[in-house]
């Protein structure tokens, strides 16, 4: 059997540090499980525990502080062969930086083994206490919050859904726990509480006295895998209005249309239909929308450009028409009225003071209801201005899942009696 440890490893750790014990135990547990070095990747975090890579003859990935679990999860999801193993090693510092990653990997029950070498201090930066330090260690290291208990990593991972979570003393039966963890399909966590001679707990006695109790928590769950899907081209489902020569538009056309109303009242759909109908009559179009953070309340405005030429600039410089169907729409559109050529209003709204262009008003909300008002008003303006026959709009509404309602709103514009103000 090939070895996981390199030939004559040179351990980088201080004398008495249980990271050395852990490195040997990890290698032995993998070897005992019959793992070929090319069938396992060890993903390491930052910290004393993370400088283990040169000791290992298997694949290694050395990432960032606190992120090894998320990185390992990506690797696990990307490796198609389920017999390959992913082992993550991090310290107590990395574990609290990336606690979310551990919870997520546990929730999904990603098939990998996470080993947290918890020596209750940050060994690399001078021995500050961590969120996994016992209260006494927090006091000893002068953190000033000795009354605050440490996280119970195993309970958290177990509660989130991990298949196996164990806490064990690094001076105790670590290799046996690691072997048990490696045998699990799903997320297995082994928290090995250990000694940092330089800054932390220095004796086996203190370790036994101060470490949280050893535990093994199991849960029988299927591991997560990202299923591979074969999906069709997005272009197959793109909106493809069929240009019809009978509706050919005039060359040199360039129209800017603003529709403003209330959220949930069909402003965006009306604008999308106009953009599609524009293509059906041989033009090019752009459509964009604006609405507040909540899509179901407040204003909703849309801008559509129709042009015989390619549209390079997608903002409307001077609107040919601003169509407003509600008070909220009026408030939102006020800034665009200044240089608009025409205004089309629901008859419940007042013509804004100072507006000098052509203004048409009709009872769109009454004729088509609140939900159909924007499309009704748009259809009304299209018919009045002769920009396009309503058949073009009806045609592009055809494939829509609300085609019946949309066509009814378009139809209702024919019976809308309007006034030129």
């Amino acid at each position, binding site marked *: 059997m090939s070895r996981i440890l390199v030939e004559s490893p040179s351990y980088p750790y201080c004398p008495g540090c249980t990271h050395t014990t852990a490195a040997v135990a990890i290698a032995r547990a993998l070897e005992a499980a019959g793992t070929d070095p090319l069938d396992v990747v060890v993903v390491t975090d930052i910290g004393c525990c993370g400088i283990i890579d040169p000791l290992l003859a298997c694949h290694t990935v050395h*990432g960032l502080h606190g992120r090894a679990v998320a990185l390992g999860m990506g690797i696990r999801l990307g490796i198609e062969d389920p017999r390959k193993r992913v082992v993550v090693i991090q310290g107590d510092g990395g574990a609290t930086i990336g606690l979310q990653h551990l919870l997520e990997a546990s929730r999904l029950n990603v098939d990998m083994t996470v080993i947290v070498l918890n020596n209750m201090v940050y060994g690399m930066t001078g021995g500050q206490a961590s969120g996994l330090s016992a209260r006494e260690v927090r006091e000893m290291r002068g953190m000033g919050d000795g009354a605050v208990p440490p996280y119970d990593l195993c309970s958290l991972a177990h509660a989130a859904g991990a298949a196996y979570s164990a806490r064990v003393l690094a001076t105790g039966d670590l290799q046996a726990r690691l072997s048990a963890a490696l045998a699990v399909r799903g997320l297995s966590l082994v928290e090995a509480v250990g000694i940092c001679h330089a800054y932390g707990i220095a004796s086996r006695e203190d370790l036994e006295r101060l470490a949280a109790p050893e535990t093994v928590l199991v849960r029988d769950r299927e591991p997560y895998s990202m299923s591979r899907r074969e999906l069709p081209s997005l272009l197959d489902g793109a909106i493809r209005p069929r240009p019809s020569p009978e509706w050919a538009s005039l060359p040199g056309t360039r129209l800017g249309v603003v529709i403003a109303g209330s959220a949930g009242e069909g402003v965006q759909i009306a604008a999308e239909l106009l953009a599609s109908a524009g293509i059906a009559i041989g033009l090019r179009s752009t459509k964009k929308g604006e609405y507040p953070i909540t899509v179901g309340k407040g204003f909703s405005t849309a801008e559509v450009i129709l042009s015989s030429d390619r549209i390079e600039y997608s903002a409307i410089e001077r609107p040919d028409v601003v169509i407003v169907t509600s008070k909220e729409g009026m408030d939102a559109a006020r800034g665009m009225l200044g240089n608009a050529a025409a205004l089309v209003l629901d008859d419940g709204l007042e013509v804004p003071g100072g507006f000098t262009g052509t203004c048409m008003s009709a009872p769109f909300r009454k004729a088509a209801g609140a939900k159909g008002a924007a499309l009704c008003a748009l259809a009304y303006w299209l018919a009045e201005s002769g920009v396009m026959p309503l058949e073009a709009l009806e045609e592009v509404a055809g494939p829509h899942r609300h085609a019946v309602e949309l066509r009814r709103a378009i139809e209702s514009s024919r019976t809308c009696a309007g006034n030129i103000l």
Partner: protein
Amino acid sequence: MAHPAAGGGDLVSADGSMLVIEALARAGADAFVGYPITPTNLIFSHANARFPLFRSSTDEISAAQTMSGLSAAGKLPVTGTSFPGFALMLETVNMAFMMELPMVIVLGQRMGPSTGSATTGAQGDLLLLRGAISGGYALPVLCPSNPEDCWTLAAEAAKVAVSLRTPVVLLTSKEMLMTRWTVDLSALPEVRRVEWPAYDGDGPYVPYRAGEGLVPPFLPTCDGSHRTRFNASTHDETGLIRKASPGAIANTERLWRKVRERAGEFAFLDLDARDGASTLIVSYGMTAGAARVAAARLGKAGRPTSLLVLKTLLPLPQEALDAISRYDRVVVAEENLTGLLREMLHGTVGREGVTGVNAIGRMVSPDDIIKEVRR
């Protein structure tokens, strides 16, 4: 059916996000991991409808890390985000740059600072990208100026990511990603699947030993024939931590050199140099549309004006720098207050004759640019 006014073709009404995602998928990008954020909402939903592998992640740091893991395992991952999410990803982008992991980040710009205004477009992230990699190393950044570019540059982004083994940013904005454009599909070039130049030697495989082209041949982690090592800390060609040893410094310098020396492979721009023009308009991204209209109107009005649209922003193409230096008068148009491209070109000191057209909260208009050219 051919239509006289439309000039025939296969016209669709499509948002820029759809073109980006479809082109990336055709180029061989096979995994999307992201946390939805405006204005890349459609990038997220289109990716879910298209990519073979898809994961909605708990946050942007997790997303970027999971992408890195997928990339190390031989996938080509993509994400979509905007400044708030990208800020969280920044350390991981450095990691992926250092590990030499291919990936594509679609960055949809929105108005800042901070959370700013999610649904208001902007071009405010260029200098962040310029300094994104600690040490000032160039992260390749491509920037579509119209819907057709969304298609071609997304495919190029995938190609650059793989051939240079690096994260690549596709810098877009709300306007490009969420506006529905009319696009003639029959005029879009075919997108070819990107080839992975995997290591096929007899070994020993030395993970970061670069051959010609300064890029080490790739093998996915857990390869069955050779041991691999990936490392985000300073390493030499073995992939092991070596601090400031000569080998490690040489490897780190190579990261800089590979992007600089191969920049010519992805130097995209449109240069329209007009006879008799004394002024050059320079623009990129969404503002390029206004710049094109402005240059055309100026030309029609008897004032021929040259136009440079940059599509590769990092590293800046040499051809662009040469063009800019040929004009006494240069007008740089971009949707931000402080002139990020202008500063990238000529520093805080600036250059005489180089002025900006800038706006926030609205698009720069053709008239804004014309006014500055005529000033």
